[in-house]
């Protein structure tokens, strides 16, 4: 009796092993044949998370497999980036690549831009410079001129942010005495300006839109190519003679060496997702603009941004 059971078990085990081994063999024919993991470098709930979840939902519809969003916060996102870099480059692990892709390496993080396949840029949140309502300055030029004689404090969301870099760059280019004051996130930075504790704030459009709408903040400039729908009547920095653009952009990336055919499928699908209504509904209320660049265009852009930040952030 026992022997018979043993034999049956052995056969069953062999059969199972066989199935387990053969499954990938016939499944590899067409690209998405199993779940895709989408790694987000921030905790659930923030702008990166919301953007990623909207894209993941659209990819799921388009590719017909589940796209699982995985939050791996920590160390300005480099924990998540390193995790993705270590995964097999088969297209089943992708992630959200924020502006830190161009900043992290200048701040001593163990991060290499070359370790990744760039799939597409999908969004950009332009930086704005705002002052409290009772501030005497009404244009960027007013503010910069005044800062040449007296020191001005400008709050931002954190030391390693594109918002901090905006202040540094402005100060460097115009020789104005601007002191960047890093806070723990965009909202406290805006609060410091509302309370009159700092002279100005550099923040994202989403964080400043409500204060602008009820008149408690004056937005002096937008560091973007064109005017922002949330700030009617506010000119860009370029229009005021300062040819600078800054933004918290983001895109989708994977580990280096994703095969071209898989890359093409993903790029095509991400392009559709980035144009979908789900995606627009998720980002526009937060002041984020949809900006699409193909993987190669985005890679060139990231390299250019990194070169620019290297100058500003060099110790």
């Amino acid at each position: 009796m026992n022997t018979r059971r043993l034999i049956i078990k052995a056969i069953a085990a062999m059969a199972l092993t066989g199935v387990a081994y053969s499954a990938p063999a016939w499944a590899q024919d067409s690209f998405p044949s199993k779940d895709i993991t989408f790694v987000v470098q921030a905790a659930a709930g923030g702008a990166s998370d919301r953007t990623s979840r909207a894209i993941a939902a659209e990819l799921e519809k388009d590719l017909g497999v589940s796209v699982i969003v995985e939050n791996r916060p920590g160390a300005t996102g480099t924990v998540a980036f390193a995790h993705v870099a270590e995964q097999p480059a088969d297209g089943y692990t992708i992630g959200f690549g924020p502006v830190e892709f161009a900043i992290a390496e200048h701040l001593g993080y163990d991060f290499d831009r070359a370790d990744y396949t760039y799939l597409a840029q999908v969004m950009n949140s332009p930086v704005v410079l705002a002052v409290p309502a009772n501030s005497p300055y009404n244009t960027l030029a007013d503010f910069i001129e005044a800062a040449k004689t007296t020191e001005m404090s400008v709050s931002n969301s954190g030391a390693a942010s594109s918002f901090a870099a905006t202040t540094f760059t402005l100060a460097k280019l115009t020789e104005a005495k601007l002191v960047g004051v890093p806070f723990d996130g965009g909202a406290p930075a805006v609060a410091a300006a509302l309370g009159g504790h700092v002279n100005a704030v550099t923040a994202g459009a989403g964080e400043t839109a409500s204060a602008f709408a009820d008149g408690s903040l004056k937005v002096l400039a937008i560091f973007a190519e064109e005017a922002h729908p949330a700030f009617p009547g506010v000119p860009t920095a370029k229009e005021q003679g300062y040819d600078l653009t800054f933004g918290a952009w983001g895109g989708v990336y994977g580990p280096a060496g994703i095969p071209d055919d898989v890359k093409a499928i993903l790029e095509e699908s991400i392009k559709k997702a980035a144009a979908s209504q789900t995606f627009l509904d998720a980002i526009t209320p937060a002041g984020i603009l949809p900006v699409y660049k193909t993987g190669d265009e985005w890679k060139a852009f990231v390299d250019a941004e990194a070169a620019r930040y290297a100058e500003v952030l060099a110790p």
Partner: protein
Amino acid sequence: MSALLDGVLAVFEPSVMLCLSVGVVVGMLVGMFPGITATMAVALASGFTMTLEPVQGLAVLLTIYVAANFGDRIPSILINTPGTPASIATTFDGYPMAKNGQAGLALIVSALVSAVGIVASMVLFAGAAVPLAQLALRFGPSEMFAVVVLAMTIMISISSKSITKGLLAGVIGLFIATIGRDPISGDARFTFGIRELNGGLDFIAVIIGLFGIAELLDQLLTHRNHEVKPISALGRWWPNKSEYKRIAKPTAISGLIGLVVGIIPGAGGDIAGLLGWDRAKAASSTKATFGKGNIEGVAAADTASSATLGGSLTTTMALGIPGDSVMAVMIGSMIVWGIQPGPSLFVNEPALVATITAIMVLATFITLAINLVRMPMMVKLLDMPKPYIWATVLVFCIVGTYATTNNLFTVWVMLFFGVVGLILKRCGIPAGPIVLGLILGPLAESNLRRSLLIDGPTGLIDKPISATLIGLAIIAVVAALGSPLLARRKAKRAKATLLLKTVPYRLKATPPFCVNARPLAWTAPLYLAPRVNFPRSAKTSARRSPASASTFWATSR
């Protein structure tokens, strides 16, 4: 008026009530699960509520917020592991009460005062949100630094017996907090090239380790069969008249503290609970038993941390600035629904404000009712054999901690701090001040440096709010350190005649500001060999009286 009534009535729609009950269940569960915070639950739920009507969505999210605030106290009291950071101070008296056989009483009191805290703070939210929120804006970096310095003086009071050991613990906490990136310059500190340390140690992992895992290891190493007693069989559930009277004062004091702390952006339930506990202790006539299972301590800690809910909702809705991390996530959802928090919300949409208030209050009452009815069943679980309980706790702690970052490194951090916590506990160094240092250190550092960047060194003293608060902090330190010093000097003088006899003692005594390492060295073999039913060690373990040896605060303070 009719707009307000409509707003309140909107909550009683069947679909909204359904959302509310979903929120209660989810909230209670995430609250009880150590490691999973209300912030995470609300963030994940907001993915599903996006497509709902605003009122339905708010019902789910706000109810999770409320119910988690009830749930997180349960593991604090029963297994010394805070369900969320907001219930850290609950462990101070809640767990000793459970060990004294008063788990039921602690749970009921905790639930009652949590409800009082939330409802009272919601009354203020509904009545005076806009003027109160303006107060929040007055708190810039200098003022925040002053608040934090004042809060740091609590270290003295939660150190209890040995101030030296308490302060040492506080400094350990402050040190742990410096690991990671410099908040202003972004330079790496104490990261030893480990990528995960760049973001600093995960706060939740550290507190679960220091409280939960350390207690678990302690139980494991001092396991004795004769000590197993059914907790649910002991003690009353409902407080008696004199106990109601006793908790009235701490509830009032710490409720006020909780509200103010809640309004200040960036300071939440964890700080409020600690501050409330400290102030209630100072005002109490039974100071000596605080930390050893005093019902007033439970009442104070829970009222304070619950009252932050209305406070942070005030800042969030009246200014559009999140009052805490849950609210930061909630603002994202509200914007998607087309609700723009800010001062104009109260003028343009009074119905919505009424709805939010109604949801919060109703959720509080439902959760309270469930808590009061279901609590005995929950506590019955503790009648299981101890090894099963602690094994389950270990599994929950590991899963919960893993969920915070999806990274095994965080779990190792938790286990590491479990061992650290056990060693410190055996040396008599309390965990409370460590957590305080851990919470307050980064706030103190970053705000001081911001203040210096903005105003230079004079910024702290030429502003009325910060100058007053720093003055209060100095008074608190002098008062707390001065009185025992004076008492000691008196005692010394009285002993002066006996000086010669005490010379040998004095030589052995620990020099000030040094840790007494002897207990550690002496008990070292105990850490290595779990004493489970060894006949030879039975004698040793019997000598340690169960009441003092197994009670966390009794051994560590």
